[in-house]
């Protein structure tokens, strides 16, 4: 059989950076504050727990998908559940990814408005962000992968500035480890799980991966890279801010940068946050891509660029009539994150079990 996705294969490295890109996003700006308020300075243990869970979930997804190496989850929905039930699943998947894209989009706009451009309208920023989004999302996974690679290299330099911070750090802030028992840490894990979301894109990416043997290694590497980055930022925040201070900041990662002053440049966080848009784009664009593809598949179309255009026009139209306040945005995020936890961590288990049963039934016939 001709492999349908061979025209757009992605390399091992593209597979990894696509997942890392989808995982690392808004979360990194708020995560240190959030887990500090729940789990205190032992919050980093929660991150490791979350990493274990997300790695297991990714492996389960791979296990399920490896039975059908030439089909994405959207194709699978149709071929397993039939046309009508399958379409219902696709719609759920579409709504999920669309909301993910929407939330990333609007949170980005919100952060930008708070930190850099307080007077620019939401519509103006929506139009601006739609251009690069559409340019990438209209193409195939291969282009998404290349984009993620370029962004990966473009954003590496941002680490160098962390060296300026190590002067005023106190490692003693981290002690004592596990001072309030395990419960707060487990509660913190729940928060961190959200920041690892993005690996569920494996459902879409797996058929495109050129070297299927690498998949298991790939998801583990991707999750570990994300873990490493999160641990690095969290440790940096924890040893820089006092355990009490950190809970007061909404975006502690950005506050870190405020401290740095170079002889020729001040307010480094403006530069940083602007450049961080690249990282945010690799979180949002894959979701836009997946929604556009789902929409196209619902209509039975092969090409999805018109649908991508439609989605971005939709975003601009929404921005004309609806400008979410911080509270509203948090509410939408809260509802979405619950469904995200279900789709990313629980659904794979059910899906794998279903596939096992389904294959047995089909074989018997």
């Amino acid at each position, binding site marked *: 059989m001709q492999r349908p996705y061979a025209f757009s294969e992605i390399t091992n490295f593209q597979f990894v950076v696509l997942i890392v890109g989808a995982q690392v996003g808004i979360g990194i700006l708020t995560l240190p504050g959030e887990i500090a308020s729940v789990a205190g300075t032992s919050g980093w243990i929660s991150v490791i727990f979350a990493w274990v869970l997300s790695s297991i979930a990714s492996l389960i997804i791979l296990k399920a998908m490896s039975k059908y190496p030439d089909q994405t989850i959207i194709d699978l929905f149709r071929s397993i559940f039939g046309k009508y039930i399958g379409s219902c699943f696709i719609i759920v998947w579409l709504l999920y990814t669309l909301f993910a894209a929407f939330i990333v989009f609007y949170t980005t706009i919100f952060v930008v408005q708070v930190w850099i451009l307080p007077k620019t309208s939401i519509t103006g920023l929506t139009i601006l962000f739609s251009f690069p989004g559409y340019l990438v999302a209209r193409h195939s996974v291969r282009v998404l992968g290349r984009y993620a*690679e370029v962004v990966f290299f473009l954003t590496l330099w941002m680490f160098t500035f962390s060296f300026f911070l190590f002067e005023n750090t106190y490692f003693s802030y981290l002690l004592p480890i596990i001072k309030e028992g395990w419960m707060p840490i487990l509660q913190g894990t729940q928060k961190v799980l959200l920041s690892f979301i993005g690996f569920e894109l494996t459902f879409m990416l797996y058929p495109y991966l050129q070297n299927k043997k690498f998949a298991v290694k790939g998801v583990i590497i991707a999750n570990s890279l994300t873990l490493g980055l999160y641990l690095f930022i969290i440790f940096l925040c924890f040893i820089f801010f006092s355990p009490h201070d950190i809970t007061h900041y909404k975006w502690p990662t950005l506050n870190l940068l405020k401290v740095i*002053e170079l002889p020729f440049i001040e307010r480094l966080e403006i530069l940083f946050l602007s450049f961080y848009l690249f990282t945010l784009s690799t979180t949002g664009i894959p979701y836009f891509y997946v929604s556009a593809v789902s929409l196209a598949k619902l209509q039975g179309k092969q090409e999805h660029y018109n649908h991508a255009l439609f989605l971005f026009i939709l975003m601009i139209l929404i921005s004309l009539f609806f400008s979410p306040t911080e509270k509203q945005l948090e509410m939408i995020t809260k509802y979405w994150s619950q469904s995200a936890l279900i789709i990313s961590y629980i659904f794979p288990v059910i899906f794998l079990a279903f596939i096992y049963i389904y294959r047995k039934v089909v074989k018997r016939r």
Partner: protein
Amino acid sequence: MRKRLGKGNQRKNELYKKLQETFKDVTDFYIREIPAKNNQFFIAYIKGLVDSKVISEFVIKPIMEADEKPSIDQMHSLTYVNNIRLSKDYDAITNALRKGNSVLFSSESDECLILGTPGWKNRDIREPQAESTIRGSHQGFIENLKINLGLFRRYVPDRNLKTIQLTLGKRSQTQACLVFLEDIADEDLVKEMLKRLEGIQIDAVLNTGEIQDFIEDSSITLFPQFLITERPDTTASAIYQGKIALFIDHSPGVLIGPHNFSSFLQSVDDYSIRWLPASFIRVLRYVSFFVAIFLPSLYIATLSFHYELLPLDLIISVGESRERVPIPPILEAIFMEIVIEVLREAGLRLPSPISQTVGIVGGIVIGQAAVEAGIVSNIMVIVVALTAIASFIIPSQDMSSGIRLFRFPIMVLAALYGMIGVVIGLMIIVAHFVSLETLGTPYSNPLAPTRLRDWKDFIIRLPMQKMKSRPTQARANDQIRQSKGDK
């Protein structure tokens, strides 16, 4: 139409009349009658396309001196012209005439001899002005396909070298030649290239640049996707990488593909000097690439949105220079950028003594006067000068003129959205950049898809002995350049 009629008009045969009819009102067409013993010969040619010396010495003279009555068949062995064929086909005869051949026929036979006697003035072989080097070879292609192929072949005596002859342009019938190494170049790429070339349905092809528009993967882009070079050594190096070159008659530019972005920032000199200075220059080029695109927009973004980015001392000195300037930074920048583009174009078309004057008048007088008049600030003049110089450092003319246009939309973005606009501008460029392909291979290679093996010759250039494999761009069949044993 000039006729050299002999006495016996009745002896002129069918072909003579036909030719006279076809070339009616063509003033540079000649038929010369050659009286020989017992037989009447005619030689037809278009003056200016043929070498008259060859015709008189090697065609007419032997006929005159022949003792016997020569027939057309015998003429085969009598003339000293090296490229001869017999033909009866009238279309072939007239086509041959238009391409600088001459036709010899007699009153007795239907057949005639097509003699390869083309001769026109060729330019001397000189160093190409736009691609001069310090250490590399100083030969450049000229306007003759055969001579160009010869210049190039001296670099590639490989027996796998294939040269496929093509004819482009319905009316112009331009000779073209597709060149590649059969055992290295990817078959699919060659097929794809041929397919695209055969798809060209235009009346005339005058220049390599015209071909480029027809065969590139995406026309709506500022990035060039094929290299057009006038250097034989650049062509040879591309051929050895498994790339494909297209030579076109009467154009000194040779089109080479697939060519990725990073290759446009390489020059022949990188390989003729030692690797450390070469790497340094490479890095400079990449920095200049970004400076040429982003410097004016960074200036606009900082001044109109984020002056808090700059420390106090710097703000004060910038503020002082802008004190008397009434217009906003974006207008100031666009005005100055347009002035420098105009100066550049004006200097390009003029003879060099005048263009120097233009440079001095434009650069020094206008720049200084504009600052004193309070139209632009000093810093803006510096910014504009830096961008212009940065764009000159890009070795490829096509790439340099392409990226210069990027900065205008990004300046507008910077004026509207500040630093966010600049970053989104970069994002749009990256998004567009990664979606580009050249002959179906990724344009952003080796950055994306990341091929670390090719990074030896990307932003820096490692010593030659480290480059053991061919670059992946052209999907060369034989990957090995240096086998493990030898160094």
